[in-house]
């Protein structure tokens, strides 16, 4: 039986303005009923433009712009879109109000509305959120409600535009579960993203989008088997796939799996941990006195205690990552380090001196902070002016050579004179990071620095963090991207309900499996792989896996049916 054709592109091109480059170029593909298609590409590749064409925003709302070729919806096909920012999309104070909004616009009877809302909340397992206030939901919950609010209108095709880009691992996991539900219910979905890890288990086909052009169309397996392709597209793939490519030359029998547990089961009995080497960061001599010291820090928002008796030390030339679920106190803690928040009790010292009495601007000489959304920071006319802003505020001039060096490290040399707010999200983020680093503070705080960054930018960021360490700068990181945290961190502080519940090297912290289970926090994929293989201690990166493991002679991998 032929599947219904939902949408078809035939040699479709789109330009926002005549003088600008085409956002989409000669796109040809079709979406059939029941498919879950992933369109993968880095930020700026044209994903959101494609989402807008699929949903009809282009050309019905965005009426300027030039189209060529065909972008046709099937007969009587409706398309629903979930945008990247659920807080801007949802209309309604409670979840019920927000989900009902679309149905009210369709002039549906009250009784029918109530039934449909019940159905969709049950389908997505979020019935318990019905009377909750949208504003107070977590990122993952808001995204789930956003999906529900669109799904309730029964679109034939659901388009998800980077649905997990700003979510923590728990939120990502929630959206992943929803995708499973949608697949089970036969809903057709197009996902546009630069992360292929979270949706890998559900996707039926993949399209690769680069600079507005489709350069790949095929299965997920074919996509993951071509590292040049996903690197070119700047797509983040599951760590298991990276491991496959690291090991396949030496071990051609190494199976390609994108789920860590499946990989572990396939490798069971074939690989063992050959040594319990010390972590490289264990061998580093820690300075006797910390750069930043937090003593008995307490912070209350009214009657709510956000931080309780927190003690922490941050050292020059080291990277400390703060982990914890949303609401655990990570942001509250770092906001004390540069004076944005003042303690209810306790103290923060920099170089042994208390920071109380110093303004945030005065403290910014010592502690620079990069906010999660770079658009909150950028306002100058060019990238170069942006990067030199903090220095100018502190009365320091950045030389032309230094400027070029920072731009080179950030991969932004050709954008030196560009208007920062016209850059892609990843480029904006890198600009904001360079703004902080170039002011040569004693410490840099990075809040979710990998958001919007493609693979190449992430590598540059990893290298940049290494350079900051070499310069003796203390780096404090908040990130939900656990593989990145494993890669760069010397130390991890794990927060829960305003307290530090575990601290130490990444191996030590991620080895606390039961603690993570109690906190309902996911572990990095490599840790899950280590656990499935029965390793006594975690192996957290693919290079570490190469170094610390041995293939058993005569061992064989278990092919899954």
């Amino acid at each position, binding site marked *: 039986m032929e599947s219904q054709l939902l949408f078809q592109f035939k040699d479709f091109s789109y330009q926002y303005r005549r003088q600008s480059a085409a956002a989409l170029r000669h796109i040809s593909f079709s979406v059939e009923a029941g498919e879950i298609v992933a369109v993968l590409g880095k930020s700026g590749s044209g994903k959101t433009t494609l989402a807008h064409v699929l949903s009809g925003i282009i050309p019905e709302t965005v009426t300027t712009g030039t189209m060529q070729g065909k972008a046709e919806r099937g007969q009587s096909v409706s398309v629903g879109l979930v945008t990247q920012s659920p807080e801007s999309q949802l209309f309604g104070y409670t979840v019920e109000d927000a989900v009902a909004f679309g149905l009210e616009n369709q002039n549906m009877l009250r009784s029918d*509305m109530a039934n449909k809302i019940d159905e969709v909340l049950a389908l997505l397992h979020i019935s318990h959120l019905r009377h909750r206030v949208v504003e107070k939901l977590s990122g993952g919950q808001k995204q789930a409600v956003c999906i529900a609010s669109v799904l309730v209108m029964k679109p034939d095709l659901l388009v998800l535009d980077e649905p997990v880009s700003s979510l923590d691992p728990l939120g990502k996991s929630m959206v992943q579960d929803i995708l499973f539900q949608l697949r089970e219910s036969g809903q057709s979905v197009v996902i546009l993203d630069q992360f292929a890890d979270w949706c890998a288990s559900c996707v039926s086909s993949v399209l690769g989008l680069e600079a507005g052009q489709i350069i790949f169309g095929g299965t997920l397996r074919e996509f993951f088997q071509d590292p040049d392709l996903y690197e070119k597209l700047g797509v983040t793939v599951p760590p298991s796939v990276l491991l496959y490519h690291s090991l396949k030359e030496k071990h051609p029998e190494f199976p390609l799996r994108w789920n860590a547990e499946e990989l572990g089961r396939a490798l069971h009995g074939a690989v063992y941990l050959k040594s319990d080497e010390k972590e490289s960061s264990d061998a580093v001599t820690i300075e006797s006195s910390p750069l930043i010291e937090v003593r008995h820090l307490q912070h209350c928002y009214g009657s709510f205690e956000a931080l309780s008796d927190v003690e922490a030390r941050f050292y020059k030339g080291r990277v400390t990552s703060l982990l914890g679920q949303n609401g655990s106190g990570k942001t509250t803690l770092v906001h004390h380090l540069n004076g944005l928040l003042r303690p209810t009790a306790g103290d923060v010292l920099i170089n042994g001196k208390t920071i109380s009495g110093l303004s945030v601007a005065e403290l910014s000489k010592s502690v620079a902070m990069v906010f999660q959304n770079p658009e909150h920071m950028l*306002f100058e006319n060019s990238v170069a002016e942006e990067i030199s802003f903090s220095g100018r505020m502190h009365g320091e001039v950045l030389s032309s050579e230094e400027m070029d060096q920072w731009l080179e490290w950030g991969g932004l040399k050709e954008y030196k004179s560009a208007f920062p707010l016209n850059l892609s999200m990843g480029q904006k983020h890198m600009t904001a990071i360079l703004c902080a680093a170039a002011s040569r503070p004693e410490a840099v705080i990075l809040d979710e620095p990998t958001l919007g960054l493609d693979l190449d930018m992430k590598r540059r960021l990893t290298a940049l963090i290494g350079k900051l360490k070499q310069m003796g700068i203390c780096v404090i990181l908040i990130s939900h991207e656990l593989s990145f945290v494993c890669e760069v961190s010397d130390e991890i502080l794990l927060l829960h309900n305003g307290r530090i519940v575990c601290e130490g090297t990444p191996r030590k912290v991620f080895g606390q499996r039961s603690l993570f289970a109690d906190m309902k926090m996911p572990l990095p994929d490599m840790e899950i792989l280590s656990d499935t293989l029965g390793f006594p201690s975690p192996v957290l990166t693919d290079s570490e896996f190469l170094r610390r493991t041995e293939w058993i002679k005569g061992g064989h991998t278990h092919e899954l049916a």
Partner: protein
Amino acid sequence: MNWLEYMDEDTFFHRLSPVTKIIWFVLISVLIAVVRDLPAVTVLFLFMAAVWVRAGLIDRMKMLGRNLFPIMGFAFVMWIVIGALHVDAPDTVPIYQDRIFCLEYADISRAVSTVFRIFLMVSVFYTLIITTNFSEIIYGLRKLHVPYPAAFGAGLVFQVIPNIIREFRTVVDAQRSRGLEVDRGPVMKRARRYCLVLVPLFIRILGTAQNITMSMFIYRLHLGSSRSSLKEIRTKRDDLLFLGISILVFAGAGYLSLIH
């Protein structure tokens, strides 16, 4: 806490129907605009104080009072000065008199009345918005047959304004974190520095407006077409009781104003 935001609580005032609260707001606003005499205004103020105490809103109103103090102080002084520049009742003994000024009890009464009225005008609106979420405002206005575009617009304002205030604070914090000194120094210099915040804030507001437009399209909102409503607003006994008491108080204040 963003003190301009809706208070998610369960007070008697929260439980009133949005229709009741909107009608009450319109009536008391008109009365405050019309009634100027101190005894009548005092009655209204005492009525509102009772409402705030009963609804647990006293702390919020104290905060509002502190924030409005400069305006109220200025108004008080201005009315005293204006009143002292002419003689209202030549037969009565003034409090103070010289060649230019003649300060009488009536001048003080008017000044105090003005201050109360300013506070009341702002506080009744504030009471409405902190006890009625934006969805309820829309449902309430629709029930009162306000055209949907106007009702939606009103609700959208209350949905978006707290977000804009949050964005403003985040943008200011981001620039402070980069070395922009807005906490210290001469007032004019700090004010000029705040202008640097306007660009990223403006960009964010434009982005929000764009997102709202797209969302209206995604949810098939056509402002001219008829639409249904999930929530059914019913007038309960408490609504009638509150409106009844309010109308009695308003009538009393009006009567006091007439006889005064």
